[in-house]
């Protein structure tokens, strides 16, 4: 697959460039010393549409102890590559090429022969920790199983000792007792740690991690990445890290391989890829990701179109149909991976790679639209009307035990005294880990009724007055929702016309009026009007989400509730949907209530943000203030946990790694909710700890410092930021801080 015409530059002197070793692309023999070398890997599947060529010639060499990041959108063949290496593809797949592990060929081995390698020399960490452990066996049994298979002679005591050692290595507290625990007694992050423990049980030479943190919260993601890092250091294993998140690999990987349409399109050292991308696709991917650490709000770069269908072999460059720089020459044959000028071991599959470089602005290349301005942006917030107000809303679930006689053993305070308001034309976001009560808050708003604990005012009408159907439907008209999963939110048996007609029919519109409105809506969200007769499964994910947005806008609501609207989409598509939401907010004067776990998206799109922890708002305020100057330790931890697609920053920045998970509702702390995990609390002297443990910190404005007051000579209007912490300026506990030094990565 790769071209044989390019000669490998003779480069044997020890230099920083030495660690760029995905180099041997055009060699027929693996590089010396590589633990894993893949040559011309091809995978084909049969589908209803014909034979799909899912992986088309992947080559790489992995050196001991190094990390290779494989990045790409869904459908680019990265997971299939990893499964092919592990020999885990179904027998119906056609795999060809070569996979050499320590000089031994793995492809073509039967399942039994593969078992000698799997879990021993090469191990895998799967994406979903909830389903990769067997629920009926204890964690200890599952770890010892991995040990028993490859070390039949090991004694029982030795195996148990090793299991304890492994569990403590991955940071599970009191490992000896936890051996006898079942998977359901662990949280998602803990289970992923156990998975890593099982994977490294036999000191594998290669660890394949397929999206190991995608299913986890940001704080837990940071913990797990840290564990992977330690595991790699302890065992010296080489890691293949597969992810769609450019931030996750930025801090971890030594080399990056960007895949598109089943082929690597750019490979190189991590710095080359991030700071000097030479392939338009890589540039687009980097430009499509919103940055949590940048306040400046430019539009994101959407990569138009969708990846090609691999039923047909592309005749030209596979990225050409989506590439803004496409020219006649691009359509003549697929470009091979060729070294780019300047970077010896940096390769890109683009005929124009020479003219691209660090100085080319991705926004210009992809002609990102200008950021739209809303007419409300000029009006001060206080003067705008409130479209939604929450006053002290609570939702408590009783926790009962016993089958026949139910005893109440506690209360889950899913939402505990929430108050905020959303003004016209504003985007308000709620962020927090799963279990913090974000979704319950949305449900409380969407399923408003008069018996609620607390008041929900929608468009000036309170839920207390919503007794009759007329008031209720008036309130419903003001408020619509866009769901997380665009596939699940559209009835698979409805055409787009029927989907969009449903709310309109319900509003009592006549047929011609419905037709007219649907055509308007299709254009509004950027879909072809003649697509109305299609079914949802005939659209791509991004288009489906556009249909979902169109449905929400059908009855002209003033507030749209967005529940993780882009988390199910690929980054390139995500950028397009975020831009659309931005545009609609500006042009229609909409307000958004956004719930998202991706803080970068939140920072990009919102005006105000609330951070929730265990049902309470711990910090609320203007988005740039909160993100640039977080006062609550939880906000600080959340922000520091987010990986940034910037390798230098990732390696040098200080990270707060929170201990453990959300406390279970039964042992909810008395005073400050966050005290059990708080890095400030851990460093406080005992006398001050008392205050945190007994008193609940109120949500308050930061009192302006005496100096500032003296300077202004009078009361200063408080900035829009409130937080609930007694010691916002407290020192952080050093145990919870982690910095990865650059030296660690650059060492030869």
């Amino acid at each position, binding site marked *: 697959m790769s071209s044989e015409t390019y000669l490998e530059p003779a480069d044997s002197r020890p230099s920083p460039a030495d660690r760029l070793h995905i180099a041997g692309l055009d060699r027929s023999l693996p590089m010396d010393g590589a633990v894993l070398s893949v040559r011309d890997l091809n995978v*084909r599947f*049969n*589908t*209803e*549409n014909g*034979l799909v060529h899912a992986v088309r010639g992947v080559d790489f060499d992995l050196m001991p102890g190094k990390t290779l990041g494989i990045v790409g959108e869904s459908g680019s063949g990265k997971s299939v590559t990893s499964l092919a290496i592990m020999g885990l593809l*179904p027998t*119906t*797949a*056609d795999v060809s090429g070569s996979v050499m592990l320590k000089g031994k060929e793995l492809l073509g081995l039967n399942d039994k022969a593969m078992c000698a390698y799997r879990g021993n020399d090469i191990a895998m960490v799967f994406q979903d920790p909830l389903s990769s452990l067997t629920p009926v066996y204890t964690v200890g049994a599952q770890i010892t199983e991995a040990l028993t298979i490859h070390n039949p002679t090991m004694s029982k005591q030795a195996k148990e000792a090793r299991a304890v050692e492994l569990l403590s290595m991955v940071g599970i507290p009191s490992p000896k007792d936890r051996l006898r625990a079942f998977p359901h007694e662990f949280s998602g992050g803990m289970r992923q740690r156990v998975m890593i423990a099982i994977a490294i049980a036999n000191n594998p030479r290669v660890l394949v991690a397929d999206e190991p943190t995608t299913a986890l919260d940001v704080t837990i993601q940071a913990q797990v990445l840290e564990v992977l890092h330690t595991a790699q250091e302890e065992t010296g294993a080489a890691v293949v890290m597969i992810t769609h998140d450019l931030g996750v690999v930025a801090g971890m990987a030594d080399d990056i391989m960007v895949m598109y349409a089943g082929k690597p399109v750019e490979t190189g050292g991590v710095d080359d890829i991030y700071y000097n991308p030479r392939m338009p696709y890589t540039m687009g991917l980097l430009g499509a990701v919103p940055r949590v650490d940048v306040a400046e709000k430019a539009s994101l770069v*959407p990569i*138009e*179109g*969708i990846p*090609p*269908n691999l*039923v*047909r072999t592309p005749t030209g460059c596979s990225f050409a*149909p*989506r590439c803004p720089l496409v020219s006649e020459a691009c359509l003549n044959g697929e470009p091979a991976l060729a070294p780019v000028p300047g970077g010896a071991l940096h390769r890109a599959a683009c005929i124009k790679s020479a003219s691209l470089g660090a100085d080319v602005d991705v926004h210009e290349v992809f002609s990102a639209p200008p950021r739209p301005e809303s007419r409300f942006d000029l009006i001060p917030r206080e003067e705008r009307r409130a479209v939604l107000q929450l006053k002290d809303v609570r939702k408590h679930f009783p926790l009962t035990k016993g089958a026949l006689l139910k005893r109440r053993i506690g209360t889950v305070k899913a939402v505990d005294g929430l108050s905020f308001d959303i003004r016209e034309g504003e985007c308000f976001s709620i962020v927090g880990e799963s279990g913090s009560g974000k979704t319950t808050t949305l449900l409380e708003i*969407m399923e408003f009724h008069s018996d609620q604990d607390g008041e929900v005012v929608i468009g000036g009408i309170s839920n207390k007055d919503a007794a009759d159907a007329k008031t*209720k*439907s008036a309130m*419903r008209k003001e*408020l*619509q*929702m866009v*769901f*997380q*999963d665009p596939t*699940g*939110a*559209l*009835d*698979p*048996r409805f055409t787009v016309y029927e989907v969009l007609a*449903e*709310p309109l029919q*319900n509003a009592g519109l006549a047929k011609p009026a419905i037709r007219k409105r649907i055509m308007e809506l299709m*254009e*509004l*969200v*950027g*879909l*072809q009007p003649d*697509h109305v007769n*299609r079914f949802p*499964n*005939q*659209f*791509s994910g*991004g*288009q489906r989400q*556009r249909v*979902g947005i169109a*449905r929400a806008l059908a*009855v002209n609501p003033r507030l749209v509730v967005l529940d993780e609207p882009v988390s199910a989409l690929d980054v390139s598509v995500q950028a*397009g949907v975020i831009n*659309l939401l931005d545009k609609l907010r500006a*042009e229609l004067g909409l307000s958004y209530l956004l719930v998202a776990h991706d803080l970068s998206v939140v920072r990009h799109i919102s005006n105000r943000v609330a951070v929730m922890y265990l049902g309470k708002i711990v910090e609320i305020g203007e988005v740039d203030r909160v993100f640039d100057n977080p006062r609550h330790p939880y906000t600080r931890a959340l922000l520091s946990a987010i990986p940034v697609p910037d390798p230098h920053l990732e390696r040098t920045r200080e990270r707060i790694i929170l201990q453990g998970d959300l406390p279970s509702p039964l042992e909810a702390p008395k005073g400050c909710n966050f005290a059990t995990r708080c890095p400030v609390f851990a460093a406080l002297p005992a006398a001050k700890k008392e205050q945190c443990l007994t008193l609940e910190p109120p949500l308050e404005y930061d009192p302006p410092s005496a100096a500032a007051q003296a300077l202004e000579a009078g009361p200063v209007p408080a900035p829009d930021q409130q937080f609930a912490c007694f010691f916002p300026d407290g020192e952080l506990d050093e145990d919870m801080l982690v910095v990865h030094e650059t030296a660690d990565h650059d060492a030869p």
Partner: protein
Amino acid sequence: MTNLNAVDAAAVAEEAHLQNADVVIGKSTIIFRRFMRNKTAVAGLVVFLGLTVFSFVGGFFTPWDKETIDPFNIAMPPSGEHFLGTSQAGIDLYAMTVEGTRISILIGLIVGLVSVLIAAVYGCTMAYFGGKVDKVMLFVLEALIMMPALLVVAVATSGGGAGLKRDLPSWLLLIIVLLVFSWMGTARLIRSLSMSLMQRDYVKAAQYMGVPPRRIVWRHLVPNIGSLLVLDITRGVTGAVLAEVAFSFIGIGIKVPDVSLGVLIGSATSQVQTFPWMFWVPLTVMFLLTGSLAMMNDGLRDAFDPSSSSIGSARKNSAKKKQA
């Protein structure tokens, strides 16, 4: 708001892509193709259709009917005059088999279809409303399951339902009784399936739009359990055919002068030794009927199940291509 009319360039590109590649295959096409790939199922379908056609037009190939007695041929083995022989009463077995097959298929199809329809509406309603409605409806359902169906059938078709018997032919009465007792299992299955559908976002979206519950059940829930319904119809048909045979066999189902496969089998059991054709012919037909349905069911499950491997192997296909 003028620039709102500009169609997003991204969407145009995606559109072009979708049209060029044949990504879009209708679900029905996929299901049909998958079904056709299962040779056993296709054979089952052919046998079933053949039997149905036979039961309607088979009567034209013989001058005899199920009531005429041939006094010269009593209890005769198959011959040129009587294709399948005659019964002890001298009635042509071929004519009776045609008639019996028709009644059996009729009972099977009606009971299978209608009971699934009842089950779908009942189950979806239970699941949608939940709470008290669910509890009451579930109680009714459980009560019906507890009721001994056999006794009710016996009473309704023989002694008790004298009034009913006068107005209705025995096969229609049997259909009604079978219907009353056949939908509960499916209804419970559909209830649990709909409950999980209720968690789907599109049902929630409809609720948040304020769509009335009746419309949600009819437009969103019932169609989306369609594949299960199709499977359950074929299963229900098999079940009804077997129930009819069993009830008629013990003498409480179809009553003479109506004939069904069960009646034929039941009346011939005592004469297996002496007049074997009387027993084996209707038994074979019944086996063909239920067997073909079972074969179809297997194929239908393959066709609807997204995880089925009916697509075949890439390796095999590429090997074939190389040979070609």
